[in-house]
């Protein structure tokens, strides 16, 4: 799912940034439509958060956890407004 996400972001020319950790976890920051999203690719789930002034996020607990890649894909397509 990580590779799919990166390919989609590239294809749509959406600004993103990737952080990789020794734990093999990756964080993908996405800037889209004046919003800032954080995807956490953990070993057993994908975390999704929207960080803004009301949700400043001084922790690593995602707003939503997706254990099903297809569910995350639907979320991704929705926020990126892909038909």
């Amino acid at each position, binding site marked *: 799912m990580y590779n799919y996400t990166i390919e989609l972001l590239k294809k749509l020319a959406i600004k993103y940034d990737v*952080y990789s*950790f020794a734990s093999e976890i990756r964080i993908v920051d996405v800037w889209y439509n004046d919003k800032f999203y954080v995807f*956490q690719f953990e070993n057993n789930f994908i975390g999704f958060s929207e960080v803004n002034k009301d949700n400043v996020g*001084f*922790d*690593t607990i995602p707003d939503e956890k997706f254990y099903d890649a297809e569910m995350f894909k639907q979320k991704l397509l929705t926020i990126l407004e892909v038909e």
Partner: protein
Amino acid sequence: MNGDRSMYQMYDSEEEAGKAALSYIGLAVPVALKAGTNAVNAGSNVSKVLTRGERLAMLKERLLNAPMPKNPKEALKLINNTLDKIEKTHAGPNDRMFGILDNKYVTINANGSMTALTKGHRIEIQANGSFSIFERSTGNLFLSK
């Protein structure tokens, strides 16, 4: 029954029953249970629930006024402990922030410096314990100590 007072009492609502139960086990009824209030604890030490932004501003102020940490481990402990004290007192239900819970999102660099990520911030800690916190969405400096 048999002249004894009943063990049971009927209450008009679950809220009333809850308050009575808290009183029975010796706990003060939280002010938050009373209509129209906005507080975490009852009694003389009433703690106001603050927004995440207000709590983060408080974190900034307290970190800037805290003694200087001597290394990255101390700096991370200072950040976590300071946040924890604020959150225990001022976070509303299900709104608590937890700081850096483990090393999953921490990178230790060869020069002894450390980078830790939260969803919203990047914490850069130098080997001597000085640190800067940046907002990840904008790259803006949140604080430098």
